[in-house]
C-alpha cells in the first residue's frame, strides 16, 4: 500500500487553516437562510396575498435547480446582465447563493412545523388580545422551532458540506486548498481523505450541539 502517513498528518493542520472561511460561509449562510425562511414560512401560513404566490415560485425554483447552477448564475451570469453586480466578490456570492438555496428548504421545514402546532395555541394567544403576528412570534414559532430543529439541522449540515462548491467560484476555502495541495503533490487520496475527515468531524460536532439544544428545548415538555 502506498499511503503517505507523514504527508497525511502534515496536511491536516494546513487544511485546518482554511476551516475558518468554510465555517464563516456556513454560519453566515445559516443566519440569512433562517431569517428568510422564517419570513417565507409565515407568509405561507398566513397565505398573504401575492407574497404567498411569489414565495411558492421562489421555493419551487431554488429546490428545482442545482445549487452549483445557482451559484454560477449568481456569480458568472447575473453581473453580465446587471453591471452593478460586477463588484461582488466570490465569498459574498457564495454566501448569498447558499442562503437563497437553503432558505427554500428551511422555509418548508418551518412551515410544516408551524402547521404541526395545535391550532388552539394560536387561538389562545388571540383570545388574550395578541395580534396574529405577535401570537406567531411569541407562542407558535418558539414551539415550532423545537419541532423543526432536527430537519433544520439536517439542512445546515448539508449547507456546511455544500460550502465546498464555493471553490468553483474561486473562494479559497477548505476544499479549494485540498484541491491545490493534491494537484501539486499528486497525493490525491491523502489530501481528499484529510478534507473528508475534517468535514466529518465538524458535522459530528454540530450534531452534538443539536442534541444539547433538543434537550434544552424539551425541558418544558417533560412530565
Amino acid at each position, binding site marked *: 500500500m502506498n499511503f503517505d502517513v507523514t504527508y497525511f498528518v502534515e496536511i491536516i493542520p494546513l487544511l485546518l487553516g482554511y476551516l475558518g472561511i468554510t465555517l464563516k460561509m456556513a454560519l453566515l449562510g445559516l443566519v440569512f437562510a433562517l431569517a428568510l425562511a422564517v419570513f417565507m414560512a409565515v407568509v405561507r401560513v398566513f397565505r398573504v396575498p401575492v407574497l404567498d404566490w411569489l414565495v411558492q415560485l421562489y421555493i419551487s425554483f431554488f429546490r428545482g435547480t442545482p445549487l452549483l447552477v445557482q451559484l454560477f448564475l449568481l456569480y458568472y451570469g447575473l453581473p453580465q446582465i446587471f453591471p452593478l453586480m460586477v463588484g461582488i466578490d466570490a465569498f459574498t456570492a457564495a454566501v448569498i447563493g447558499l442562503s437563497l438555496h437553503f432558505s427554500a428548504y428551511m422555509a418548508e421545514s418551518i412551515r410544516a412545523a408551524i402547521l404541526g402546532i395545535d391550532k388552539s*395555541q394560536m*387561538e*389562545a394567544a388571540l383570545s388574550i388580545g395578541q395580534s396574529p403576528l405577535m401570537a406567531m412570534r411569541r407562542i407558535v414559532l418558539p414551539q415550532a422551532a423545537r419541532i423543526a430543529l432536527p430537519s433544520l439541522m439536517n439542512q445546515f449540515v448539508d449547507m456546511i458540506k455544500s460550502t465546498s462548491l464555493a471553490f468553483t467560484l474561486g473562494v479559497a476555502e477548505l476544499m479549494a486548498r485540498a484541491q491545490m495541495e493534491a494537484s501539486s503533490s499528486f497525493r490525491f487520496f491523502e489530501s481528499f481523505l484529510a478534507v473528508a475527515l475534517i468535514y466529518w468531524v465538524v458535522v459530528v460536532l454540530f450534531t452534538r450541539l443539536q442534541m444539547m439544544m433538543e434537550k434544552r428545548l424539551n425541558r*418544558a415538555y417533560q412530565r
Partner: protein
Amino acid sequence: MIRIQNLTKAYNGQKVLDGINLDIAEGEIIVVIGPSGTGKSTLLRCINYLEQPDAGIISIGDTQVDAAHASRKSVLKLRRNTSFVFQNYALFANKTALQNIAEGLITVWKKPKPQALQEAAQILSDIGLADKADSYPASLSGGQQQRVGIGRAMASHSQVMLFDEPTSALDPEWVEEVLQLMKKLAHRKQTMVIVTHEMDFARDIADRVIFMEGGRIVEQGPPQKIFSQPDDDRTRAFLRKVLR
C-alpha cells in the same frame, strides 16, 4: 352592557347560529345549555371572533363590531374586552404557569415585566397554585391546567369571561376544583357566559339559563324556572335526558 344582535353563522350552508339576540348585564352569569352541535360553542367563539360570524353586531362597552365590516382593529379591541377559557385548556405549552398568566399583561397590556410578574403571581396564589409558578403545563394535572387557564383569563380583567365547556375534558376528580374557582369568580360579580353540561353547577351559579337548539335560543330564564317548569317541549325533552 353586552349586546348581541342577529348573530348568524353557517358552515357549508348549514346554519349553526340562526339569528341570536342576547343582552347581558354587568355582573350577570349566563349558562348556555343544549344538545351538542346546536351552536353553543360557536356562539362563544363568535363573541370574540375566534370564528368570524356571517352577520350580526356585537357590542361590548364602547366597542361595536359589525360582521359586515369588521376591521382588524375593532376585532382586536373586542378580544381585549373578552377572555376565553378553552375546553382543552390551551395553555401556552412553551411557558410556565406564571408566564402563561403574565403573557397578556406584558405583551397586550404593556405592563413593565416586574409588575406583570407580580400581578401574575398574585393571581396564581388566588387560584391556589402559588407553588406551581415555574411548572410547565405538561407537568400539571388537568384540573391545575384549567385553573391556570382561568387565571390567564382573569389577568386581562375583561368585561366578560367566556367559558367553553371548561370541565368536559377533565377527569372527574378534577372537575370540582375548577367549578369551585368559577364560583369564586361569580361571587366577585365577574360577568360570565358559560357553556357546560354540569347541570347542578348551572342551577347553582346561573342568573339566567339559556337553552339552545338548532342554532337558536329556544328558551331562557332563571334556573329555577328552566330546570323545574320549562315552557318548551324541546327544553323538557333535553332536561329529561340529561337530568334522569
